[in-house]
C-alpha cells in the first residue's frame, strides 16, 4: 500500500507541474515578440491608433497574399484591430459573405448572378472594389525556338476539345512534328475558370482532358521548365519568380493585332489582352458603418497599389483605384458585372467599371 500511496502522490504532482511548465514556456516567450515590435524596425513613424474591433475576411487564395500584406501593414498602425484573413477560394468566400459571416470577401473574379441573388435574399449589400491586376501567363520552355507569339485561335487549337492538336505541327505547319505536353492548374482554381472563359468563350466546349493538372503552381513551373515540348499557364506572379527557367509567349491582342508580353506595363495599360484579370474585394455596406472596417478599407485602397506589387501582382490605373475609393466613401452599392437582366458582363475593366453599368 505504501508504494501505491507514493505513486498517487507522484501522479498528483506531475500533472500540475506539466501544466505549470507549459504555462511558463508560454508566458516567458510571449513577451519577446512585443519587445521586438517596440523597437521599430521599419521607417514608419505613424502614430499608433487606439482603434479596436475585429474584421473578418475570406475568399480567393489569389487575393489572399494582397489582403495579408495589407492586414500586416495595417496592424502596425492599428494594433488593437484584429484582422483575420482566410483564403478558402472565391466561391467559398461568397458562401460566407452571403450569410453575413464575413465583412469583406476577396474575389479573383466578379460576383456571379446566383451569388448576388443570395446576397439580396439575405439582405447583404456590398460595394464592389477592384484592387489589382493578375496577368495570366502562357509559358513555354526556353529551348522552344518556334513559338514566339500566340493568338487566341492558336490557343483554342491547343487547348480546346477532345480533337485538339496533338503535335505542334497541327497548330502551325511550320512548327516541328513533336507532341504537345500541357501543364495547367486544377479545375477547381479560379485561374482554370478564367482561362476557360477567355479561350472557350460562351460556347459549351470544354478544355481537353489529357492535360497534366495540378493545384500546385510550383509543379507546373517545374513541368514546363524540364520539358522542351511543354506549354502551360498560371498567374504572372509565379512566372516572375521563375523567369530564368521559363519563357513567356507573347499574346496577340485581338483588338489591335499586336503581340504583347505580360509585363507590368502591358497588363496595367490593358494591352496584354485578353489574359489580364482584375482582382476584387467586396465590402459589406453594413460593416462599413463600423469605424474599424471603414478605416481598414480606406487603408486598403490607399496602399494596395504599392503592396500588391511587393507580392507579385500588377497595380491598377490610379483612376480606377480613385473610383473604387469614392464608391466606398459614397457607399455606392452593387456590381458592375451583372446586367439588369441578370447576364454576366465580360470585357476590360475600364469599360465595365463605369457608373452606367452599376446594378444594385
Amino acid at each position, binding site marked *: 500500500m505504501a508504494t501505491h500511496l507514493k*505513486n498517487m502522490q507522484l501522479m498528483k504532482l506531475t500533472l500540475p507541474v506539466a501544466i505549470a511548465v507549459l504555462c511558463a514556456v508560454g508566458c516567458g516567450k510571449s513577451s519577446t515578440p512585443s519587445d521586438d515590435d517596440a523597437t521599430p524596425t521599419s521607417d514608419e513613424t505613424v502614430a499608433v491608433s487606439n482603434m479596436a474591433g475585429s474584421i473578418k475576411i475570406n475568399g480567393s487564395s489569389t487575393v489572399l497574399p494582397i489582403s495579408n500584406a495589407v492586414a500586416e501593414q495595417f496592424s502596425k498602425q492599428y494594433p488593437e484591430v484584429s484582422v483575420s484573413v482566410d483564403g478558402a477560394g472565391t466561391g467559398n468566400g461568397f458562401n460566407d459573405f452571403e*450569410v453575413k459571416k464575413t465583412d469583406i470577401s476577396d474575389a479573383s473574379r466578379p460576383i456571379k448572378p446566383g451569388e448576388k441573388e443570395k446576397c439580396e435574399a439575405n439582405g447583404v449589400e456590398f460595394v464592389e472594389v477592384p484592387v489589382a491586376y493578375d496577368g495570366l501567363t502562357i509559358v513555354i520552355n526556353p529551348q522552344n525556338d518556334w513559338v514566339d507569339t500566340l493568338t487566341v485561335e492558336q490557343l483554342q487549337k491547343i487547348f480546346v476539345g477532345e480533337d485538339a492538336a496533338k503535335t505542334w505541327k497541327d497548330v502551325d505547319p511550320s512548327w516541328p512534328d513533336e507532341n504537345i505536353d500541357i501543364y495547367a492548374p486544377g479545375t477547381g482554381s479560379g485561374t482554370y475558370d478564367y482561362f476557360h472563359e477567355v479561350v472557350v468563350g460562351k460556347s459549351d466546349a470544354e478544355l481537353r482532358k489529357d492535360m497534366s493538372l495540378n493545384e500546385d503552381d510550383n509543379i507546373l513551373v517545374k513541368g514546363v521548365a524540364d520539358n522542351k515540348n511543354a506549354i502551360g499557364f498560371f498567374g504572372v506572379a509565379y512566372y516572375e519568380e521563375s523567369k530564368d527557367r521559363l519563357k513567356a509567349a507573347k499574346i496577340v491582342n485581338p483588338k489591335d493585332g499586336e503581340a504583347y508580353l505580360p509585363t507590368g506595363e502591358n497588363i496595367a495599360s490593358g494591352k496584354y489582352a485578353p489574359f489580364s484579370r482584375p482582382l476584387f474585394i467586396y465590402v459589406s455596406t453594413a460593416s462599413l458603418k463600423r469605424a*474599424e472596417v471603414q478605416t481598414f478599407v480606406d487603408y486598403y485602397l490607399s496602399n494596395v497599389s504599392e503592396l500588391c506589387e511587393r507580392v507579385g501582382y500588377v497595380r491598377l490605373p490610379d483612376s480606377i483605384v480613385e473610383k473604387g475609393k469614392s464608391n466606398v466613401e459614397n457607399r455606392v452599392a452593387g456590381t458592375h458585372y451583372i446586367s439588369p437582366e441578370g447576364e454576366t458582363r465580360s470585357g476590360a475593366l475600364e469599360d465595365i467599371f463605369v457608373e452606367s453599368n452599376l446594378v444594385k
Partner: protein
Amino acid sequence: MPTALTNQDAQYLTNNAIRRKRMSRWFYGLCVAIAFVSVLILVVLLAAIWTQGQSRLTTDLLTRAHSELEIERSGMWPSIIGSLIVCFVCALAALPLGIATAVFLEEFKPTSKPLRFVHGFIQLNIANLAGVPSIVYGLLGLTVFVYMFNIFGQIKVNESPGWEIMGAEHYYQVMTLQPGHVVFVPQEDSSVPEIEITEPTIGVDNEGKQLELAVWEPGTPRPKDEATKRRTIEKGAIGGTITRRSWYYFRLPLDKSFLSGGLTLALVILPIIIIASQEALRAVSPSLREASMGIGATTWQTVRHVCLPAAVPGIMTGAILAMGRAIGEAAPILVVLGANVMKSGAPEHLMDNAVTMPVLIFNWAGRQQIEFQELAAAAIIVLLVVLLILNSTAIIIRQKVQKAHT
C-alpha cells in the same frame, strides 16, 4: 517403417543442416536490412530537410510571426504556442475520456445480456473509428463544435455574437475629430448594433477611464488643439459595436476557436488512446486483480489502487503516440480553423483563433518564393524538435512513475 527413415543418409543430414542454417542466416540478414530501410528513409528525410532549412534556423523563426512583406524575417512563434495550446486542450479532453472508456470496457464487463451487447457494440465501433481518416473528423468537428448544429444561432458580423456566456463587454466605437483616434461609449442594450451621437455624452478611453465627450456641429468653428479633438465627435457620427473580451470570454457555438480545434483533434486521437489503454489494462497480471478482490476490495477500489497504477506506463505510451499524431495533424485543423496564418501572437481569449505548426508549414510549402520553401523546411525541424521535447518529457515522467511502482 521404411528403411529410408530408420537408416538416414549422413551426407543428406549434414547438407540439410547446412542448408537450413544458411536459410536462417539469410533471413536474419533480410530482417536487419528491412529494419534499416525505415532508418534510411528517416535519415534521408532529415538530411534533405536539414540541408534545405538549416540556413533559416534563426531566432527570427522562433520569435516572430508570419510576414508577407518581410519574408526573410518570417517566423513561427504564434504557431508554436498555438500548437501547444491546441494539443493541451486535446489532451485535456481525450485522456480522461479515453482512459475512462478503456476502464469501462476492460474492468466493468457487464453480465446481463443487453448490457453485454452494448459493450460489444462499443468495442466494435472503437475499432472502426480508429480507421476513419482525420479529414472526416475535421468535417464532424465543423458541425459539432464550430457551428453546434446552429442550435445557439449563427455567428454573424454586425449581428448576434451567439450565446455569450461570460467575459464580454460591448461598446460603441466612435471616431473623433482626431484622425485615427476613437472613443468608446458603453453599450446598454446589446440588440442595438449602432448609435448615432447627436448630443454630448459620457464615453470611456481604452483604459476604461471616463471622458466627457463634446459634439462638434459642422459649420461651427472646429476645435484646434489635439486634446479637445480627441474627445470631440462630429454631430451625427455613427458608432458601431465592438466587443472587449476578457481571457475567459466564452460563447456558444465555439466558432473557429482553438477550443474547437483541440476538441476535434481529441476526436481524432480518442480511439488510439482507448485501444492503447485497453491493452495496458489487459497486460496487468490477473493475479494482482484477484488478490485485491480476494481481500474484499470492490471493483472500483481494485481499478483505482491496483489496475490503473500498474497500467500507467502503458497508458502513457499510448498517450505519447496519440499526442504525436495530434500535433502533426493538418487536415482537420484546416477544416475547423481555416487557413489563416496571419495571427501575430498567442490566442488572447478562449474563443480566439490559433495557427498551428502543420497549417503554417502547409501554407509555406505551397508558396512559390524560395524563402518560404526554406522556411517550411526549417519549420519542420522546429516541429520535430518540439515533438521530441514533448515526448521525452512524457517518457521521463513515465519512467519516474514506473520506478515508484516497482
